[in-house]
């Protein structure tokens, strides 16, 4: 919790130039409004305690998580790193209530969420969490704008959606413009590059003003340039919208820019 974001030294690595840019942007943002001490005082937004998860493969039970504990401060940027197959995605899914742990509890805003009813979990996912996936997972039948609007469609009933459509659309356009895709709103996902798709997915994750962004290797499927763009977008937005971000990555460079890095080895957190 002590290692908060803004005063982090610039590191020159593979993404050095971008880090620089990003941080300068973050700095201007800060000088314009928010104050660091507030952020530092942010309480724990999410926590996981003693989480166990194992998968069954026929007779064989494969334990993936063996007692994971973690705390996420509001407004922080947490990176979850670890080897491929170490259970990063599994942990993220458990935090996002997409799956239930075998043991242990997940708390969100001081409320246990892992054992809520499906309906309640769906509502939390829809309103509080913004999910970003490695393979973007946009709906191919919908345009970019519609894809961004999907969480709103899911949230609202038919008529309330129609009633609020104008406001939602405005917000969606705003977000798409923020991620630099204001000119491609009518396009279908298959007409865009991976980076553009992932930026659309970010806009989608942000449409319902979530408290937490849960991203599973958002750059994992992108080349350097596109990945950089995506990270830049994410960072900018994080600053602007005062977001808490939990990001799974195997990119050590990316993890270094995080406030906190959680390393998973053998089903437990080894470093904090």
């Amino acid at each position, binding site marked *: 919790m002590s290692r908060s974001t803004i005063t982090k030294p610039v590191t020159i690595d593979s993404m050095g130039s971008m880090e620089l840019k990003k941080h300068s942007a973050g700095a201007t943002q800060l000088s314009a409004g928010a104050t660091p001490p507030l952020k530092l005082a942010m309480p724990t937004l999410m926590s996981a305690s003693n989480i166990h998860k194992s998968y069954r493969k026929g007779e064989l039970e494969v334990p993936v998580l063996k007692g994971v504990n973690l705390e996420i401060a509001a407004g922080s940027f947490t990176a979850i790193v670890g080897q491929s197959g170490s259970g990063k995605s599994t942990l993220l899914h458990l935090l996002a209530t997409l799956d239930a742990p075998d043991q242990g509890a997940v708390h969100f805003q001081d409320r246990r969420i892992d054992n809520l009813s499906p*309906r309640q979990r769906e509502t939390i996912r*829809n*309103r509080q969490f913004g999910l970003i996936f490695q393979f973007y997972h946009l*709906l*191919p039948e*919908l345009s970019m704008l519609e894809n961004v609007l999907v969480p709103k469609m*899911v949230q609202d*009933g038919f008529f309330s959606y*129609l009633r609020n459509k104008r406001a939602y659309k405005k917000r969606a356009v705003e977000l798409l413009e923020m991620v630099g895709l204001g000119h491609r709103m009518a396009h279908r996902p298959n007409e865009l590059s991976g980076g553009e798709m992932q930026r659309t997915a970010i806009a989608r994750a942000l449409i319902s003003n979530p408290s937490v962004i849960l991203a599973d290797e958002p750059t994992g499927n992108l080349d350097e340039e596109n990945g950089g763009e995506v990270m830049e977008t994410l960072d900018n937005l994080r600053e602007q919208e005062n977001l808490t971000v939990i990001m799974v990555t195997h990119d050590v460079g990316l993890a270094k820019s995080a406030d906190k890095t959680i390393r998973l080895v053998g089903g437990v957190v080894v470093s904090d």
Partner: protein
Amino acid sequence: MYKLLLSWRYLRTRFIALASIISVTLGVATLIVVNSVMSGFVFEMKSRLHGILSDVEVAAPLLGQIHNPEYHTRIIRDVLGDDIESMTCVVRNPALLTFDVNGRQWTQQVMLLGIDDESFGSVTDFHPYLQNTHKREQFSFSLEEQGYPQWVSAGCPDWTTDSAWDYRRRKFSKIREAETRRLEQEKLYDLAAAEYLEQQAAKSRAWDAAQAAGDTQAPRNGEAVNANYNSNVQSPDTRQPIAASQATFIGPEQPVPRAPEKHMSASGFQHVPLPDQAPDFAAIHAQETAGVEAADSSATLRFAPTHHFNDGKTTREFRKFDPVDPYAKYSPEPAVEDFFDPEKDQYTGIILGLAIAKRKTIGEDGELKDFYMVRPGDDVQIMFPTVGGSAKPISENCTLVDFYSSNMHEYDSSFAFVPLKELQKIRGMVDPLTGDASVSTIQIKLKEGADLDAARDKLMAQFPPESYPYDIHTWQDTQRPLLSAVHMELTILNLLLFMIIAVAGFGILATFFMIVVEKTKDIGVLKALGAPSSGVMSIFLGYGMALGLVGTGAGVVLGLLFVRYINEIAEVVQVVTGQEVFDPEIYYFSEIPTIVSPTMVLLVGLGAILIAVMASVLPALRAARLHPVEALRYE
């Protein structure tokens, strides 16, 4: 919202599913077409079956009778009350029908119905089936002067006149003419024979005288006698007209009149009383030798123009002074009305089913042609038993006054109609003391929409079989086997066609499973974004419904269009394949009959949509059950 949007987008982008829905479309269209055509046919068939059967019938057993029909109709009126539209009494009994076809006798069994002129037509659809256009409007059992324009215009080779009377007059005048000639010829033979005998007698007298006088050289048989005989009998000028008249009588270029012998026996010649004295041959001879040529030309003069026969006087004169009727002058002159003149009079009218008379023959050009064995204007004989314990057969002459054709072969080939009163009289159904006539059947027409079976049951309760030997049935009871067969056919056909849609349903099922598998990741995303399982499920249900709606809608439109233009389509198919799809000769309809029932279309449509939805239920359930993590992980 997303459900609708996604259903709609899937509909627009998944053409494979549209292809699977084509089978629904075709199934729906076929169902509509088949049902429409079948109900058209069934309707036509039912109205035909119903045709000359009344709604409900109270029938005495075969050859039995219902005494005091007035009493019965009163009771029936009491029992059925306002349900009754009209009632009629009928005498029905089997009979043998005999007529001549080109001199050969044709006999067949018919069901003879004595019907009441007025009320029968109000109980059954009898009148519209009559062939004579005039009788359709104004029914009677008399022979009509006109009313067969359809036969004339159809170029029926045997039927060159619109009038049945005209035909009858021509026919009998020809018969009379021929008979006249035959008699003439007979007379000539008789005369010659008489003369010969006379000469022989004279010769024998002369010979006797000569013998007595002792002249033995006198010839016994003179040459002159033979010469005389030959000149009288075989001279070409007397033989030739007979041959000519016979030629016209049976010549191929002339329509062949039927049964000269029989009609002679049925004609007025029979009624001429036999002379009680032997004819005076000498006097006849004197008259004949002068009259032969005259009779020839005058007979033609009298018979040829038709209008002469509309004038009673001409006929009377002819009858009175008939130069060739050898018996005329010996009989006391009877009142003209007493004679039955087939050219002027008819027997009791009879109406036969068309199929009794109509046959197909192959003409010279190899084409099928209609041939009428008997036709309006001809006389026929019917033979049937009287009523009562000691039934005796009666034979009765009737004049065929018209045909009826309901196009139900069963009826058209077996029913014959005569006037009720005549039949009652002839069959001995009239009580000689009271004058009350019994009947054999009371036919009842019920009001539109009345329950036939209920009416029948009420009547059965009123006339229980223990006390009344009556058979009470509805027309549907009569035709039950056929109706139930048709019904069964329709049911099975519908079942089979619905199977087609069900098969289409399995197609949809398979396609949907594929789509769900294909959309697994999207389902995972939706769930991750907070969509409930029910929402995911309704996407696919909605999609199935949308497909069902589209397929069914297209099917309904296609089917209705097909039904609307079915005759045109049949024509096109006929032109293309050269094979007649719909032969009006076979079905008796000029067009393929169709009835589109909105209920049927609605049911078929709903059924198809339901099948499409049901086929999407399983895949939708599967989609709903997908675990979001597994779905997202799916590659």
